């Protein structure tokens, strides 16, 4: 007991206090979403499919085949394997920004939860996993449509599926940093315009990165979405990624670092 002594406030950067407590929070989000799942399914997959059809079949007719690591690839397969990563990125980001912010700031759901035996760390972990789950859900729906359209029949899609979940976790973690900093919804427009849109064009989703000038390409090497595409695209072509360790390592390191920063900033926000 330290009555009278000056107690040092706990560090914002202390290790996360994680337990299985995240599950009831995840379940809460799942129950809310269950009521809106079908309409949100339409919204989640309609746009990615429009991209795929418009660009894949439209542009694909002009482009013909591309060469990836010496292998000829139909443009629609090239695009499908990149755009599914983009869909995972968008779905996870949207959920971890707009929806998480609604729960955190507008509805004060997090404050209600923090008055129960669930720590802020667990709430944030639940939001991370929830946004990743939403991304996985979207990705799964798109994958099924791609299978139905016969774009890829690679058995390695079974491996691509958990990789795409990890992509969702990574982009959730990054988005939660900006969620912790946001004063209002307007802030997220900057994130989408300045962080996500450049990645969409520089990460090899729509065209091979070999087309980029050397400097831009060097930057693009380090973009989270680039590493996701580098892992996922070969799996669509029934091949193993060439630099799986490097891309996978970047993905995991980015996720851990981003979640740690998001946790520290969220703690700061709630301690104030």
């Amino acid at each position, binding site marked *: 007991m330290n*009555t*009278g002594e*000056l*107690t040092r*406030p706990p560090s914002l950067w202390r290790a996360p206090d994680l337990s299985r407590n995240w599950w*009831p929070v995840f379940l809460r989000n799942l129950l809310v979403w269950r009521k809106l799942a079908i309409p949100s399914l339409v919204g989640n997959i309609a746009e990615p499919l429009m991209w795929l059809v418009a660009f894949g079949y439209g542009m694909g007719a002009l482009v013909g085949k591309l060469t990836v690591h010496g292998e000829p690839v139909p443009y629609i397969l090239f695009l499908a394997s990149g755009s599914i990563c983009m869909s995972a990125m968008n779905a996870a980001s949207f959920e971890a920004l707009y929806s998480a912010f609604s729960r955190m700031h507008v509805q004060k*759901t997090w404050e*209600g939860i923090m*008055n129960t035996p669930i*720590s802020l760390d667990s709430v944030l972990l639940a939001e991370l996993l929830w946004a990743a789950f939403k991304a996985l859900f979207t990705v799964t729906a798109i994958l099924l449509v791609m299978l139905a359209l016969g774009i890829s029949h690679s058995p390695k899609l079974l491996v691509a599926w958990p990789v795409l979940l990890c992509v969702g976790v990574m982009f959730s973690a990054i988005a939660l940093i900006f969620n912790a900093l946001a004063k209002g919804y307007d802030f997220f427009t900057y994130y989408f315009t300045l962080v996500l849109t450049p990645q969409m064009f520089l990460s090899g989703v729509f065209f091979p990165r070999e087309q980029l000038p050397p400097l831009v390409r060097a930057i693009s090497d380090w973009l989270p979405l680039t590493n996701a595409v580098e892992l996922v695209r070969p799996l669509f072509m029934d091949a193993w990624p060439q630099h799986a360790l490097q891309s996978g390592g970047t993905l995991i390191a980015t996720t851990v670092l981003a979640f740690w920063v998001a946790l520290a900033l969220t703690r700061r926000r709630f301690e104030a």
Partner: protein
Amino acid sequence: MVPTDAAAPSTPPLAAPLAPPPLLDVSGLCKSYGSAVVVDGVSFAIAPGECLGVIGPNGAGKTTTIRMCLGLTAPDTGSIHYHPPAGGAPLAMPRDALAIKQQLGVVTQFDTLDPDFNCSENLRVYGRYFGLGRALLDERIPQLLEFAALSHKASAKPGELSGGMRRRLSLARALVNAPHLLLLDEPTTGLDPQARHLMWERLQRLVQGGTSILLTTHFMDEAERLCSRLIVLDHGKKIAEGAPRALIAEHLEREVVEVYGAGALAWQHDARLAPLAERIEVSGETVFFYTQNAHPLLDVLLEQPQLRTLHRPANLEDLFLKLTGRQIRQDA
């Protein structure tokens, strides 16, 4: 009725009984933000089955004190201990925050109900946060809805409820884990009189059932009605503590005569009236005469029919204004 685990011994032991340890023991709490001292050495304790009120003007440090009790803000100095009624080692905030919160119920100033869930679902989802199982919740939820007078609204969402119903749902939600101690931050702010009285009646029932309550409020009638003991905070310091009636008797004259109407202000200096009051205060266009016996004063005032007078016993609001001043605060 709401389940409570209160099992107070009904017969006092023969030997001089050791007073049971307080449920919550707060000692020497300090908190500063930069150079602003928000809470400055506040100590208090809540005994089992007691309702303790915390009153004070806006910015007095009430909410920060509550936040520290909940482990949401770390105090600079001081300690907060919770003694589980079931026995066992005392738990300290913020170290054992989650273990303490397992036994607490909290109603915040602003509702944090889930707008997407109906009343039953709100209780069920909240119960899961405490790790409560389905069978227990199936049994408890109808009881809680009945306690909150919301049985007929079980399937309604918070958006379809009145303000009073939403507050009662928040209260029911705070009771889902059958807490020994309830922390209520301004539980009736914004409610109409009917809704407030229903809320008070429910809170009184809880106290009678053995639940302890820590309550902040701006309503002096609420504090007087519900709380067995009060602490008054101002500028982060505890400036008074005691039972409501005892505090009034300690700090105030017994009776008050309020004088208002045309030219009332001039009467504060009247040579016949002034000596009949122990203390005279002015607020706006009203003069307050505080006295142990108002009858001589009223006799004089009777000769001035243009003045309007109100004769009443001194109350908690008078005490509050005497201790914290009548001026509107700059930051309020």
